[in-house]
């Protein structure tokens, strides 16, 4: 599913100094895996996830997603991949606050080339247990509810890969448990899930852990084993 080889990402700070967010990272993730990415703050987790999600490009290295080498893809092609194959879930939910839950869920469909299907959006909300809240403005929902709307949005185009960047980072224990229950369900359905988290107990839900430190993979034995399997 995911094959990243020798990826480095160098950001430029405003004063022009380079920041090495990722250094020569190689990762291979098979379809259907549930992977947790851990590491200290600033270790490059989000940078890695953004590259895996085709939202950002590596400075160096190659990235194959579902067999396609996307390193050289155009803005349009990457957008299409994000739309069809990837569902993002963010720590800060990223909902449009003055827009209803169901309309938030519909947004990915806008860019799919077809009609926006209200029924499907409602079904997705029901799936995360929010059928009754569909017409509420996002700003009126609790944090846990907002994150569930975001998950419904990530699922609406039925992507094979779910990328979550600290999905429970802003939630209390009860809400976190509910979100993790949904993630496990998605995993059982056969989706590949890559989740960044600080929390060890959350990471324990995953089948595999990758630990980053200062932009490099420091727990890499399992990764190598995976890569050799392919």
């Amino acid at each position, binding site marked *: 599913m995911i094959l990243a080889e020798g990826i480095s990402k160098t950001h430029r700070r405003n004063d022009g100094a380079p920041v090495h967010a990722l250094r020569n990272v190689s990762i291979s993730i098979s379809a259907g895996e549930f992977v947790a990415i851990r590491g200290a703050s600033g270790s490059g987790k989000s940078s890695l996830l953004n590259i895996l999600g085709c939202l950002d490009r590596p400075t160096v290295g190659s990235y194959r997603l579902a067999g396609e080498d996307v390193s050289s893809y155009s*803005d349009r092609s990457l957008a299409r991949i994000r739309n069809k194959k990837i569902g993002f879930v963010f720590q800060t939910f*990223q909902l449009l606050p*003055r827009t209803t839950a169901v309309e938030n869920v519909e947004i990915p469909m806008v*860019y799919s080339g077809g*009609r926006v299907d209200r029924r499907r959006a409602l079904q997705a909300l029901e799936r995360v247990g929010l059928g009754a809240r569909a017409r509420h403005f996002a700003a009126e929902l609790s944090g846990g509810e907002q994150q569930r709307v975001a998950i419904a949005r990530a699922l609406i185009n039925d992507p094979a890969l779910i990328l979550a960047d600290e999905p429970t980072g802003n939630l209390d224990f009860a809400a976190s448990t509910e979100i993790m229950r949904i993630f496990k369900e998605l995993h059982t359905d056969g989706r590949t899930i890559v989740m960044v988290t600080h929390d060890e107990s959350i990471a324990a839900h995953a089948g595999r852990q990758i630990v980053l430190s200062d932009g490099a993979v420091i727990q890499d034995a399992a990764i190598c084993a995976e890569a050799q399997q392919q």
Partner: protein
Amino acid sequence: MKSVEQCKQGLRAVVRFRRRSVFMMAGVVIGVATLSVLNSIGENTRRDTVKRVKNMLGTFDTVMVRPGGKTRGMVSLSNVDPSLRFEDAAAIAREIAGVKQVARLQNAFDVDVTYRDQQISPAVFGVSDNWLALRGDEVEQGSFISAEDDRKMVRVAVIGSDVCKNLFPQESPIGKTIRIGGVPFEVKGVLASRGAGPAGASLDNIVIIPVSTASRRLFNRDFLTMIIAQVKDPGDSTRVAAAISQLLRERHQLAAGMLDDFNITDPKAVLAQLTKVNSTLTMTLRGVAFLAMFGGGVVIMALMTLGVSERRREIGLRRSVGANRGDILFQFLFEAFIVASLGGFFGAAASWGGVEAVAAYQKLPAVFDQESLFASIALAAVIGVVFGSYPAWKASRVDPVAALRS
């Protein structure tokens, strides 16, 4: 399909940020309203000028010949040289090719005209019978002076509508006897109202009599105050004017080098002059209106640019779920387009009232045709797209990763 759905998203954003949308619209509304009102003032003034000149020149196919070397406004027996003779008029009719007919005029102002105990001082025009057709006037009651009236020097008069109102407020004037400078004349007809002339004075305060009667039985003058030659082809008026000039110089035995003792007005020259004055006015008004529209555009650009920085997270989110740069550009352009078009629409509606008010003030019919309505809405839409393109481009360049981090 994608663009349809994107337009819906744009519309929702316009509603979601309605306060900003209203402010953006307001700029365009003011621009369009200014444009329409100024346009209407310009157009009204133009029509008005053309109408007044038409009142003076008749049907724009007439060459006017007046005595004396220079044009001095309206001629009358008291202010012209006695250089233009009745025979000159006959010669022009006889000898100049391309002349359809020639009208003669001998007029005076402030002649006492009385009926019973009423006295007024209108203009008195002695004219040939073809005057009416030549000027494009209309008789409302009775009939105009005939060729026979002129030949036989009959004492008949046709009165303007102001004179009719003043002397005959109750009764019908036809057949009544009025005294012009003490001489009795029988009223034969009443002219339809013509409104104001180029100087703004009423053209209806007039009494018209046969020119031969005027010359022999009223004023005792044997020269004319004006000859009007109607040309067969209006495009030919400049040549006819030159031919008349040459003929009159011969008849008046003016040696080469001597100045004309008459002056000729070619309608084409008058029109050209008028159009020039008018286009200067129109250009000025357009310039002001353009500035107003430009202001509306700048408002759109400023508010949208602010909007883009406020909506960075939205842009980042849209990019992350599958929007490419072009999609973002399109949505923001569409928002600018729709807001500006709506502004154009409301501006057109608002200016409707403004135009009516201006027209009422100018005492003229309102100039507000569908065409200019659609034109101003279309112009507003174009302004929206042009001035929206910078913020839309900015929006499309937002880095989604950075936007989502914020």
